[in-house]
């Protein structure tokens, strides 16, 4: 892993393709992308805090089911809180909210498996690396949602509390309506992944 040598944390979505299905299907606006990214970030950070101490006293055979149970509980708690904050946002993300358990667990498992000790060779703690990776996830999902919404519908949805979400009209026309559909989400993500890999290659770094 390149981050172990040079402190570089690759983008988990663009380099590792983690959590892309909910991202291209459900996160079709800035509000949904930010809400999904925030959920994955909070789940990953809490899992990063809870799983390493649990590993110290849990036997190997119980570590995987316990991690899964904690991850699923955190995803459910986030989904319930989001439903209380904004029912429209929770309804928009729908069945993809429970999938946060998988995204959060993937972000943590990826780091724990490549980072067996409490801190890496460059002195970064495991939690700091998980936090950086989660921040990448949050920023990327919010940006992908915003790009799809602005280019697809010419508007930007703000995640405000209450019955309906606030929307700002950015343009009078919808230049690329297809971007709001799942197919358009995959196309946009494909371009972003290509751009990210070209940038990484140019700077001599490797992804995941």
């Amino acid at each position, binding site marked *: 892993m390149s981050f172990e040598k040079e402190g570089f944390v690759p983008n988990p979505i663009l380099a590792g393709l983690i959590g892309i299905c909910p991202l291209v299907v459900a996160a079709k606006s800035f509000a949904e992308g930010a809400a999904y990214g925030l959920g994955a970030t909070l789940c990953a950070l809490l899992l990063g805090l809870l799983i390493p101490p649990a590993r110290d006293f849990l036997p190997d055979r119980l570590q995987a089911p316990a991690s899964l149970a*904690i991850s699923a509980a955190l995803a459910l708690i986030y989904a319930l809180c989001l439903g*209380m904050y904004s029912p429209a946002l929770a309804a928009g993300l729908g069945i993809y909210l429970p999938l946060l358990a998988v995204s959060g667990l993937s972000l943590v498992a990826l780091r724990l498996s490549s980072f067996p000790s409490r801190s890496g060779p460059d002195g970064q703690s495991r939690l700091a690396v998980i936090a950086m990776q989660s921040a990448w996830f949050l920023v990327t999902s919010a940006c992908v949602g915003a790009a799809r919404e602005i280019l697809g519908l010419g508007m930007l*949805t703000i995640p405000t509390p209450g019955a309906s979400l606030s929307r700002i009209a950015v343009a009078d026309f919808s230049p690329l309506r297809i971007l709001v*559909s799942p197919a358009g989400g995959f196309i946009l993500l494909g371009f972003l992944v290509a751009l990210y890999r070209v940038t990484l290659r140019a700077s001599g770094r490797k992804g995941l």
Partner: protein
Amino acid sequence: MMADKREILVENLAVAAAIGVLVLLVAALSFVSNARATTQEGSYLAAAFSCASPQLALEVDDPAFERIFLLCNDSGNLYGSVVSLRGRGASALVGALYSPQGDLRGLHIIDSFGDSLSGDERELVSHFPDAERVLDRAADSIRNAARKGE
């Protein structure tokens, strides 16, 4: 050998107890969330259809709607529900008003993403392919709620 088995049993029970505590926490939050959602949905329907004090009539296990409310206005007893619709690149939260016989009396768009919608049934059906089926299921649930309320 016996001591090993006892140790494994104690470990398993300890983990099961910890997961049980987690489940209780989620259940408690779910209870609070459900109570809040009931109040919120009732207030959306009351505001949308000018009905005072909506009462929860039935809780439903449907992916598109969860609660049926009894609403009273000038035209007598009516039933309402907040329905979630999803289509290709569009989603909407819609308040639906029904007669006790399950006839649709009105639709009110609470929030919509994609296109601006007026609340016309034909427009909703053209935007959301499953809207007709969802509204039919809501009508069935309302007939059940009305039968139970009699």
